């Protein structure tokens, strides 16, 4: 029920975005009756609420929904399943006692400072955007420099424009979506400037948000300097050398009153870190087993807090799984520990989960370091899968069957992405 909170739960989910709602439903599905979702925003739904463009749910619902529609459908399911939801609640800490029971400390305007007890916790806090500070652009510090997501919030939730003449640093998906959105609102988008030689967003967004609107995408180019006293007036952009440093001899100025920053997302793991849970330095999210359990027993993670996903449908699927295992855990089921470690090899930036068990089938998520086409994924000596191309901006997913893992006798399984050998072809 919306706004209800009791003293004891089986599963408490931190974060009420698609991951949190999916996890709560997963926990209910496996029979856990006492589930609570906490979210610091005044409404559950997470970042979806400000994504009013369509493109959500194609995999999960087989329909093209807007972000709020996707969130709405899940929230309805959550309510129908009698899951408690407490919006406007901020989790300031979790204490774990020796018996493994967890006390979640909550700050909420409606309830004050309260603590709820639970057996398992699902971390689903999502991610935040990297800022100007993180990419370090020299120059002045006027107003008008903001992350693409904040601009999206101003436009879609509050009805204000961040400015009229827009430049965008980075080709992350939110930046691309905002290029289109602001163009439709009558703003002039001067261009998207991307440091890397490839776009950081999905190909479909490059096509639908830039190419269809004649917005130039400048690859291997960066913002080298910000000008303007009170408000940003222009930027100097420059192509970068192979060491990614700007080549100022080829720089040019772009007048603008707004600079959107869309240079990547970082999982929000302050809470996780405070709990002493082990993190993967590459994903920025926790290290998890094949049940999506973190290094702290009974504490699970899913969605963008675990690793940044491309599509909400994938988040939902992962979250349902995490929720199921969290529900099981709270009901006393203890599965055998995973005995296979999964490690990234050639051209693999990361893979999640970090360990596997021959007990079940697994979906492996990974990202490559560099684009490659055509190529193959090799999992130890167990399997190979040929792909037409891989691309850092697009997550790669594949399944490993338990019978394959049964044949594996080592303890470390390495995944590589390799070029095809002579005579090999993608069919």
């Amino acid at each position, binding site marked *: 029920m919306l706004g209800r909170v009791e003293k004891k739960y089986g599963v408490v989910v931190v974060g009420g975005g698609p991951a949190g709602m999916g996890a709560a439903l997963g926990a209910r599905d496996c029979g856990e009756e006492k589930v609570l979702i906490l979210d*610091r925003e005044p409404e559950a739904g997470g970042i979806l609420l400000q994504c009013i463009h369509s493109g959500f749910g194609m995999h999960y619902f087989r329909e093209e929904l807007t972000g709020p529609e996707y969130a709405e459908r899940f929230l309805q399911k959550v309510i129908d399943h009698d899951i408690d939801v407490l919006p*406007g609640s*901020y989790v*300031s800490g979790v204490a774990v006692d020796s018996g493994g029971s967890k006390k979640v400390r909550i*700050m*909420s*305007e*409606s*309830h*004050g*400072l309260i603590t709820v007890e639970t057996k398992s916790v699902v971390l689903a806090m999502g991610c*935040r*955007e990297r*800022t*100007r*500070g*993180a990419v*370090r652009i*020299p*120059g*002045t*510090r*006027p*107003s*008008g420099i*903001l*992350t693409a*997501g*904040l601009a999206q*919030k*101003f*436009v879609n939730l*509050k*009805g*204000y*424009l*961040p*400015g*009229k003449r827009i430049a965008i640093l980075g080709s992350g998906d939110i930046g691309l979506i905002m290029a289109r959105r602001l163009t439709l*609102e*009558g703003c002039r988008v001067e261009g998207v400037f991307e440091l890397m030689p490839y776009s950081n967003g999905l190909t479909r967004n490059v096509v639908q948000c830039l190419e269809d609107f004649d917005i130039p995408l400048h690859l291997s180019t960066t913002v*080298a*300097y*910000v000008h303007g*006293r*009170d*408000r940003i007036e222009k930027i100097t952009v420059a192509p970068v050398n192979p060491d990614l440093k700007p080549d100022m001899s080829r720089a040019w100025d772009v007048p603008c009153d707004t600079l959107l920053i869309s240079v990547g997302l970082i999982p929000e793991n*302050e809470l996780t870190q405070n709990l002493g849970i082990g993190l993967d330095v590459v994903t920025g999210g926790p290290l998890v087993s094949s049940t999506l359990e973190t290094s702290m027993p009974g504490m699970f993670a899913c969605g963008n807090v675990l690793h940044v996903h491309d599509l909400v449908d994938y988040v939902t699927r992962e979250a349902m799984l995490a929720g199921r295992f969290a529900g099981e855990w709270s009901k006393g089921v203890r599965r055998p520990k995973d005995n296979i470690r999964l490690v990234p090899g050639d051209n693999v930036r990361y893979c999640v989960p970090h360990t596997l068990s021959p007990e079940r089938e697994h979906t492996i998520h990974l990202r490559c370091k560099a684009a490659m086409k055509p190529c193959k994924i090799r999992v130890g000596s167990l399997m190979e899968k040929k792909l037409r191309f891989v691309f850092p901006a697009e997550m790669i997913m594949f399944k490993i069957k338990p019978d394959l893992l049964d044949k594996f006798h080592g303890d470390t399984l390495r995944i590589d992405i390799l070029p095809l050998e002579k005579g090999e072809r993608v069919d």
Partner: protein
Amino acid sequence: MYDIAVIGGGVIGCAIAREMSRYRLGIVVVEKYEEVGFGTTKTNSGIIHAGHHSPPDTLKGKLVVRGNKLYDRLCKDLNFGFSRIGELVVARSESEIPELERLKKQGEAKGVPGLEIWDRERLRNAEPNLSNTLIAALHAPSAGVINPYELANALSENAVDNGVDLKVNCAVEKIVVEKGFLAVHTSTETIKARFVINCAGVYADKIAGMAGLSDFTIHPRKGEEYMLDKRLKGLVQRLIFPIPEKNTKGILIIPTFDGTIMVGPTAQDTTDRDDASTTYEGSEQVFGFVSKICPSITERDTITEFAGLRAVSNTNDFIIGPTRIKGFINAAGIQSPGLTCAPAIALYVRDILKSEGLVLEKKKNFKPHLPGPPRFASLNDEQQRRLVEKDRLFAKVVCRCELVTEAEIHSAVDHGARTLDGIKFRSRAGMGRCQGGFCAPRCMDILSKRLDKPFQEITKRGGDSWVVKKMMDS
């Protein structure tokens, strides 16, 4: 007619106004920005220097030790963040040791307490994260750190509590010498005062020029500073200084009052008096240098950077005193360690005013105290519960990175915040990792409601620093 008009609401102007508000005088502070402290005062290293650095034959050298000592009292009165964390000047080779000894002697002669030379082992035990190539250090326990904007806000608020008028968004444009008083023409009104104190920072020579004085010039010298992620909190416990160079004290590692580590500043002469830009060269210089002293610091840890201008005068010293124009007094050329000297400068100016004929009569009802802002995140569980019982808005989180609650934002507005930066400097909301991405719209909502101003009129720091435009506007 005012007795005193203070031009410039930086830390110097505010310190003077607050000091003079002890007396039965009519005082006004005139500041061109939207809030006080938005000049050099908010963009410095925040160090309360021990005093061994400045030569004893300069005015800054004379005022610095006294200024440092005055901070205990000032902090007790006004409750801004201040902590004597101590300072280490580190030597990287045998050839630098005589310089440590010279600084020690210079400091001792000026009355700097507790100076001590530490050997390698003692240094390593105290600061294990510094490079192990360092061989010795001069320890100055009385050096400290403050949040300079908090100081300026506290001084001005307390001055206002004691009857001082504060005029913001009010730029001085002309000064006319009249019979027995000065007429200060500003962008909004004309102010008459018997005494004018020129505390206009990098613009002080321009202000003097308005009164017809041209006996000094100001040459801004820029300093870039880089704030690092709070993950590095605790990396060093004390201020870390290299052996000083000719024009500057060098590039420092500064554990700020809140524990976050800052590195800088550079020292670059500039002709632009509003130049607050950071540069590639600056960051390379800062991180190139700092990594030699503390190898675990890299530029990747930067969460934000800024630059401030030192108001260096042509004498390279403070210029404080009366002028040939009766009633016009300079407090100019206040470069580093100006922040440290501020309370001492206030007393120095008080004495000048007295000898210039101003009658000082103490107020009976002077209120020296100002409660500090509430800081929910730094309280223990019990204290937090009590606050929440009193006001539920203490349980409503506005800034997630620094855990700032809505009640604290309201308090910031109660205490004078008018802009997003004003809220940030008073409450820390927006100072953390996400740099306001999460809290900016919330703070704007609160400002809009509290100031009864449309959302789109809320600015980052006044002037033309608008944040959003209304959708319908064209």
